[in-house]
């Protein structure tokens, strides 16, 4: 994993993005747009859908990165997301009479809080009680599914959701403005968060210490870092991010809650994290790729392509995930100490 390869990978990704940009501009502004297939692949609606489908995956992957960089495997993202989604829904429906924006923001706050509680629970299980981290994640998934189904009031309706905010000036750029700068608030927040997390992880003392806990906890401990405190903190923040992803689904994407509405997004986020080599921008790229496969499936349905059965088109993101983790796991490197309980020298409980 030398610098050289890293640079080549960046060139390839940059090249792909450029091709996409050019094709998108051509298809959406010239007569090329009359071709159904080109519209399916490069139309503004496909690109918009990609971003919308990617946001929860990006947030989930960021959640995974924060946890795993400090050494906690978080397979419970799916459950944290579902809990966040349900919490946002309950918060929104119980404040329907408030002004729309404050009610939505209250929903976001509650989703963050409940996600954080789920993260805390994961940390308590896996650090304090040394539960296997994968089982602890599974517990969270079953728990979130059970609680949300038990408490779900099927008659409740959330009124309204976040609308798009066109950024003045930037949104006037053809195609790019429409795709990138005419989005609802949580989408912007997510894109900003990726930058923030990248800077925090790699250019701050906090980030260096977090990564030390995930790579070599003993060494981190020796220089006076409280390993388990960092693990608690990052798992809670990770839970909040996953909760926000759930909040996005209810408050910005769908507008309502459905049982099991996360539909595997938490797991696909994990794959994006692995695919992206535990790097925020890498994971975002992978999440966009997964989002794009979902967009394709949607566009193919809209374009009335029925030669390929719907179910097979829907399989694409899952199959891509399998291919991604099989093709890349050997070549990427997870944090060294991940999944292992850390006990201070001589101390326990």
């Amino acid at each position, binding site marked *: 994993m030398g610098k050289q390869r890293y640079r080549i990978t960046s060139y390839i990704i940059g090249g792909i993005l450029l091709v996409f940009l050019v094709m998108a501009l051509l298809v959406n502004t010239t007569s090329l747009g009359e071709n159904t297939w080109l519209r399916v692949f490069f139309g503004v609606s496909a690109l918009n859908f990609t971003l919308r489908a990617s946001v929860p995956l990006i947030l989930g992957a960021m959640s995974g990165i924060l946890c795993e960089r400090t050494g906690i495997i978080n397979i419970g993202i799916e459950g944290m997301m579902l809990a966040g989604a349900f919490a946002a829904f309950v918060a929104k429906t119980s404040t329907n009479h408030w002004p729309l924006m404050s009610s939505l923001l209250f929903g976001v706050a509650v989703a963050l809080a409940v996600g954080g509680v789920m993260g805390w629970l994961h940390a308590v299980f896996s650090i304090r009680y040394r539960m296997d981290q994968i089982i602890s994640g599974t517990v969270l998934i079953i728990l979130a599914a059970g609680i949300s189904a*038990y408490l779900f009031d099927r008659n409740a309706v959330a009124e309204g959701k976040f609308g798009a905010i066109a950024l003045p000036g930037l949104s006037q750029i053809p195609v790019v403005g429409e795709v990138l700068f005419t989005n609802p608030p949580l989408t912007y927040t997510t894109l900003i968060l990726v930058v923030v997390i990248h800077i925090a992880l790699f250019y701050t003392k906090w980030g260096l210490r977090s990564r030390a806990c995930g790579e070599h906890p003993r060494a981190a401990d020796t220089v006076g870092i409280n390993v388990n405190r960092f693990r608690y903190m990052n798992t809670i923040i990770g839970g909040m991010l996953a909760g926000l992803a759930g909040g996005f689904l209810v408050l910005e994407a769908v507008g309502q809650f459905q049982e099991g509405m996360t539909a595997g997004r938490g797991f696909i986020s994990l794959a994006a994290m692995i695919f992206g080599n535990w790097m925020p921008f890498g994971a975002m790229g992978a999440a966009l790729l997964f989002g794009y496969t979902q967009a394709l499936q949607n566009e193919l349905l809209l374009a009335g392509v029925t030669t390929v059965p*719907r179910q097979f088109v829907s399989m694409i993101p899952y199959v891509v995930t399998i291919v991604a983790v099989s093709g890349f796991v050997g070549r990427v490197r997870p944090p060294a100490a991940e999944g292992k309980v850390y006990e201070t020298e001589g101390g326990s409980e």
Partner: protein
Amino acid sequence: MNASSLRRIGQMLLIPILAVFTALVVGALVMWIFGDDPLAAYRGLINGAFGSARAWSTTIRKMTPLILTGLSVAVAFKAGLFNIGASGQFIIGTVCSVAVGINFPGLPAFIHLPLALLAGIAGGVLWGFIPGALKVFTGAHEVIVTIMLNYVASLFAGWTVYAGGTQGQTPGPLWDTAAGPISRTPEVFESARIPWIFGDPYRIHWGVALALLVALLMWWIIFKTTLGFATRTVGANNKAARYAGINVKWITILTMMIAGGLAGLAGAIETLGLNHRFAPEFTGGVGFDGITVALLGQTNPLGVVLSAFLLGALDAGGARMQFDSGVAADIIQVIQALVLAFVAAPMIIRQLYRLRKPSDQVEATVFSSGWGR
């Protein structure tokens, strides 16, 4: 049986029993907090699970697939593998057994039924082989792959019975042409059905006996054969197993295949014994429950039978509970998550009940040493 082995068994049962008890208490607290009456709920639950001959038969019916999916997860645990994919393997097993069951009219039952069961097992074996082989040859973690295969399996199954669409989509190959717009398969032929032990209204079929036999067989394989010893060694210490000359790669793949086959058999038995057809709403939820069953049973095949009985009873009682007390049956899932949490972290139970840690007791297996090889 001497006193010390009795004490050992007592110790083995202590944590699971306390875990279930604590989960029920916490579940009651949750119900009470949200304004439900836990006592009425549990009265309904017990009535629905054990209150009558009908209730008992429901419990046994629910227990049957859980034994097999529990074994599926437990066997994988023995080799240090986490099979979250029992639901997908279950679904593929269902589809394969139905495909045989609705074809080949006129075959005698003693050929048709075993053939349909074998088809179910084969489908599950294939669905377990994929994550096993990918893990060994590419290093892909079985957890992610099996989860993804769960989605692929249910989409695939959905396609096989798809009734076709209004835009001229072709129907799936197993769709019941007589069902009109409903997506489902026809019923399997009489010759492919598992016979009833007790017919209506009890509806208990010989599949339960088969599941119990398989549990005994797995116990024998795991604890009395070389293969089982190799599997347990791989699970306990991968490196030591390699030094001892055990083919770790082969054991990994084989274990996943066996795990898949067990879940596939669960699907086949459920279909050929009870449902007699497949429709998309028959999901593989029992596959996910298999995780709880396996851990509650301490990954021991005989323990799995006991815990499958318990979880089957919870499942069976849920509907009656909702009917009698108005408490949503989904609370059962919450209780199951709590059971799983408490058996996976015995420290919580020990602290809660001030138990000392017995010196000879093995801690819960740890197998999450990262996503790498």
